[in-house]
């Protein structure tokens, strides 16, 4: 098929060129015939005119003039190859002749009747050099035109074939690309579908999980309150009847129930953070931090701690979630600087890794950075509960608040050198931009 497509233009070109050649030959031939016929008629008229003049001379007996006429006529007309007048008895009057200049002379003859039984035959042979020259010129012209047209058509065909080859290759390339794109699109579509499906599944699972954990946490609080409450009632009402061991047991029950309550509270907070709708507002983070610190001071008024909060740190965030965020981070800082006589907690901003971010720095016990990967995972703890109380859910909640705002949090710490938490938050539109 391709071979046929590639040879077809050449075949067409050959046919066109042959037709053109045939047309050119026919045209030249036609022109020649036309001119030849015109000249033939012209020759006939000339012959008749000459015959008439000769007849007049012969009728008046001016024979001498006939000879002169033939000489003059022949000399003055370059197309005449031969002109002769022959009397009826074969006598040849003056004859004019010049060398042949063309291969296609036009010969014509006239019989001249004059006087008493007088008869002569006038023969005229003409070459029509001009016609031949014009015909040759026309042939050259047509030949040159034909060559030019043929060259142009050949060049055009070559260009066409080249273009056809190129366009075919391009077409194949485009086809391949389109096919690949279609396949890619198909993959993308299926991938998107899969992602959407998985996302939906995950959302559903998350939702169910959140609902489950909320329900569990919420529903666990009632029996815990009952355990703690009745344990306290036993200690208060039956203290006399219980020995020290029993009272100790009851205190342990109450401690366990209270710990479990804290755990449930933290879990509920984590669950709320996840489930709550984000309501962004222009919020002064510095004021939120000061409120949290105030609460911490009230809960532990004995501690002397150096607090530094950069004022007017405006962000665009959910105030409730931001309070949870700072409660956890500042609470941790408060907790892990407990053993420092010169405890320092600092909230500020800086440019870190080309990013504007907030930081909360403390000079507490710090931790080994090799465990930083599990720092924000729920129920993961880097210190024993005997050293530092806690449920191990706080930083998981912190990370969830940050992610809820579409931002990020990371940490830098070392053992006994304190820890610094860096985080970003949406910058305020009208206040200090971060």
């Amino acid at each position, binding site marked *: 098929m391709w071979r046929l497509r590639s040879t077809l233009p050449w075949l067409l070109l050959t046919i066109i060129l042959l037709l053109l050649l045939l047309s050119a030959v026919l045209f030249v031939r036609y022109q020649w015939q036309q001119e030849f016929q015109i000249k033939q008629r012209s020759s006939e008229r000339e012959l008749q005119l000459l015959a008439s003049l000769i007849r007049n001379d012969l009728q008046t007996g001016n024979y001498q003039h006939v000879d002169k006429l033939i000489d003059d006529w022949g000399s003055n007309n370059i197309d005449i190859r031969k002109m002769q007048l022959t009397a009826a008895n074969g006598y040849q009057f003056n004859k004019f002749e010049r060398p042949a200049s063309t291969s296609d002379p036009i010969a014509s003859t006239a019989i001249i009747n004059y*006087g*008493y039984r007088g008869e002569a035959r006038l023969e005229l042979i003409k070459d029509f050099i001009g016609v031949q020259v014009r015909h040759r010129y026309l042939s050259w012209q047509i030949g040159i035109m034909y060559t030019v047209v043929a060259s142009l058509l050949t060049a055009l065909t070559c260009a066409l074939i080249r273009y056809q080859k190129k366009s075919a290759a391009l077409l194949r390339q485009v086809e391949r690309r389109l096919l690949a794109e279609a396949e890619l699109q198909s993959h993308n579509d299926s991938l998107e579908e899969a992602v959407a499906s998985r996302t939906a599944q995950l959302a559903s699972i998350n939702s169910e999980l959140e609902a489950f954990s909320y329900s569990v946490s919420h529903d666990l609080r009632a029996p815990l309150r009952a355990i703690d409450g009745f344990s306290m009632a036993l200690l208060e009402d039956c203290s006399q009847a219980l020995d020290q061991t029993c009272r100790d047991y009851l205190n342990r029950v109450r401690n366990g129930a209270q710990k479990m309550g804290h755990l449930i509270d933290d879990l509920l907070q984590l669950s709320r953070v996840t489930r709550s709708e984000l309501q962004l507002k222009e919020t002064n983070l510095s004021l939120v931090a000061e409120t949290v610190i105030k609460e911490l001071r009230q809960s532990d008024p004995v501690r002397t701690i150096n607090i530094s909060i950069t004022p007017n740190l405006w962000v665009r965030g959910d105030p409730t979630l931001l309070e949870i965020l700072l409660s956890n981070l500042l609470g941790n800082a408060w907790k892990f600087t407990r053993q420092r006589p010169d405890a320092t907690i600092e909230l500020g901003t800086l440019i870190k890794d080309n990013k504007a971010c907030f930081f909360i720095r403390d000079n507490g016990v710090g931790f080994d950075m090799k465990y930083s990967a599990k720092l924000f995972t729920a129920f993961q703890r880097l210190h024993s509960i005997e050293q530092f109380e806690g449920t191990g859910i706080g930083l998981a909640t912190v990370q969830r608040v940050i992610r809820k705002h579409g931002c990020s949090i990371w940490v830098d710490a070392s053992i006994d050198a304190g820890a610094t938490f860096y985080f970003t938050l949406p910058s305020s539109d009208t206040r200090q931009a971060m």
Partner: protein
Amino acid sequence: MNQRLHILLAALVLLFSTATQPVVAATEPLILAIHPYLPEAELKQRFTPLAEYLSRMLEQPVVVRIGRNYDEHIDAVGRDQVDIAFMGPALYIKMVDKYGSKPLLARFEVNNSPNLYGVIITRKDSPIQNIKQLQNKRFAFGDQESTMSHIVPRYMLTEAGIPVSALSAYKFLGSHYNVAIAVLAGDFDAGAVKREVFLEFEPRGLRVLAQTPATPDHLFVTSATMPVSTIDKLRKALLQLSKQPNGKEIMTAMHKELTSLIPVKESDYEQLRTIVHKIEADH
């Protein structure tokens, strides 16, 4: 002194030039008249060298004048309106018959022959062997006034018992050449031409049926009013032409075979006069 001499010389030159010029200017040019037996341009070309020669010899301008036709030429010569005239023999006889004789100067001698010859011709393949067989045949004459292509041959035919009325047809073709070609073309069975024309066309297929008797050739005459001294000078100049350094050139210009100009007398044309009168009587 020198200045006076120059003025004197200039005055002499002026006097001399003004004294001689009126003589030349006052001299009327002599007219050399030629009968129109050839185209005017050719005749002028042929006779201008002679006119110049005569001018030198006579110390008087001579101009060539070609007659409009034979009759006009005869009248001009007869009425002494021209000074010198060149005429054919038959024409001269007609002029004399009409106006009387004129002083004769000289006549042509062609090929060392003082006489003119004509021939009656036919084609070589013609069955006609003599002029007696020309009865009921077609005959071509040259000019009606021509001596050799009409008058003498017609006289010969008449003498042979073939008057023009006995011919089936005859025609005046105007020139010797026309006659020769017409006979060759078969349009006429016979014709009359002067001998030199016959000799030119003989190779193309002509032969002689009869030859005319010797006839004095063309001649120069002069006006009857011409002073005798001038006539003498003219005659002497013409007769001595062949002896002149450029004489042959002048003669050849007039006639290719002219050998000299010889003395002429009235009696030379007596026989021809008889023939002319006879032909005129036949008319």
